């Protein structure tokens, strides 16, 4: 369990340092300086970011060594480390993986929701989006899902109508409105 979290920590630090390098060597020259903007402030921030990431890396490595040293000394004196079963979350599968998949599905649903709003309009898109996300969140009662997914976007539509604000109509909804007119 400890090793897993330490490795994850190490991966985070490597990602941070990789970002600092990419920002310094590619993003700032390409998307800040090349646009004619002064790069001083972004460069200063990137240096602070890189220094903090390096400090974090050094601290992490030193602490890891200290922990290892402590354990081996204790083991030298005859201490036997008990086998502690790792909780389900730390096994990398099960809850954590499921959580990751659910989050990815929700994010994907959000992007599809945006695309659908521009094609079939807010009401139908939100109906589909709510059906999908309520399922991801664990609701299995179809009657509840359908009623909720129909009523909630209707309420939002009404509020926006009252506030005299517009919601995305999309090509399909636009065509339907023209047909009704």
């Amino acid at each position, binding site marked *: 369990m400890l090793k897993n979290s330490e490795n994850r920590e190490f991966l985070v630090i490597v990602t941070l340092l990789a970002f600092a390098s990419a920002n310094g060597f590619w993003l700032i020259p390409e998307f*800040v300086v090349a646009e004619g903007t002064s790069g001083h402030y972004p460069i200063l921030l990137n240096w602070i970011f890189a220094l903090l990431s390096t400090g974090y890396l050094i601290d992490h490595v030193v602490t890891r060594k200290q922990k290892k040293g402590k354990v081996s000394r204790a083991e030298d004196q005859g201490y036997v480390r008990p086998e502690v079963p790792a909780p389900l979350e730390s096994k990398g599968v099960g809850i954590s993986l499921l959580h990751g998949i659910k989050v990815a599905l929700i994010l994907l649903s*959000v992007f599809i929701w945006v695309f659908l709003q521009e094609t079939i309009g807010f009401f139908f898109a939100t109906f589909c989006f709510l059906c999908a*996300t*309520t399922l991801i*969140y664990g*609701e299995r009662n179809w009657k509840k899902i359908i009623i909720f997914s129909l009523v909630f976007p209707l309420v939002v539509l009404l509020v926006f109508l009252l506030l005299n604000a517009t919601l995305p109509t999309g090509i399909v909804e636009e065509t339907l409105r023209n047909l009704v007119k």
Partner: protein
Amino acid sequence: MLDIFLQLWEGFLMSFTLANILGIAAGYGVGIIAGSIPGIMGVTAMVLILPFTFTMPPLFAIAAMMGVYKGACFAGSITATLFNIPGTPEAAATAFDSYPMSQSGQQARALEIALWASVIGGTLSNFILVFSAAPLSAIALKLGPAETAALILFSLTAVISLLGNTRTDIWKGGLSVVIGLMIATVGLDPMESTRRYVFGLTELDNGIPFVLAVIAFLAFAEVLEQVGQMTIISLKKSGEKAKQIPYSWKGRWQDLKFCGKELCRASLLGSLFGAMPGIGAAPAAFVAYGEAKRAAKDNSLFGKGDPRGIAAPEAANNAVAASSLIPLVTLGIPGSVAAAVLFGAFMVQGMMPGPMLMRDSPETLYGLFALFIMTDFIGGFCVALPFLALVKRIFVTLNYSLLFPAVIVCCGIGVYAEEFHVFSIVLLGVLGGFGFLLHRNGFNIPALVLALILGPFLERQTRTAMLISGGDPMIFLTKPISAGLLFLAVAAIAWAFWKRMKKGSSG
């Protein structure tokens, strides 16, 4: 002194309208519901209603936002008392005594003590805000760009130094702040109006809108977090079965007298904690609880249902809510995430909180102070008491698998309503996903959001100071206030590391 009273009176005359009262009541109701639902924080509710305030009159909008804030502050104690599940982190300190008292059949007593304490703590802190605003604003007006930049830097380092118990928390806190500052640089350069990090997207020219960033990082990321840990609420039926003892007027008066000293002490403590940027309500509530226990002659009942154990943390956490607005109102620097959201609401309404508002439009500011004072009384006595039973029912019957998708839709339409562009919803997804990843890896989201909000000010003030000095960074060290604040900023970080090294803990 008399001048302040007169201005406050004029503020009351301006703010005491039916519309504002309704705004406070509606906001308080929303805040109570949101604050009592684990997973939906008061700030989340503030963020979600923020887009709906765009079209409201300024004072009504601020009244509603303030109502949500105060309502959520109190609401955390309702579920803590009834089910031992604190709706907000600071309510955990209240639960030590309010839950045992509720279990002994004194539910009404526990909830009412929490309510009284909230109102008294909030009101005392409001008066501290009213009386400190004018002198502090006068000092703030004398601060130049170098001093203001140093003050913002000190606020951010103070936030970092108070994070977590390990050195890792400090590193990640620092990195969170820098990430927030980096995100704030997206868009047009404030001095040269040239583009930065827009990747050819014209939609990013105006930067990442404040409302969008706050909704993405505080509301959407939190909803993504909840999908993995859907709250399973197993209600302890024993509490329901216990015979309830009615709470008499005599009992109310005796409790108030018994807790009077603790209420005053905790309110002052909370006000002090709130005035310092970044500390937040939870540490104030726990310190006030500890202080009440330490000062009590007989503390044997603490943890078993002592009224002082409810009054002290509740008064402290509500005092924090009001006094955390002191840096916002006097210096224009939000000292907490909730204050930052209020700052956004002020800006949307065309008001720039800070010393200039006090100098140019004191009547508006005192009108706001009057609203803050009214919020505690109207919300506490007209909304909270009748809401208690409703909250209990909502909490028991709430379907989380329908609630969270609805919150996502609210987030989506909230960000869409700001610019009426669906690109905002794409950005919400990207930033929300990023916020979720950061949170899962132990980064501090409130620190990131504070930095994101303060980032543009910090950059503008730093660059203005550098322009004044002709590019010489020594300007920050030659001015005594700025040098002092920078010294404090470095000292805060050094202290944080030293304290955690002494503990010998990292990772």
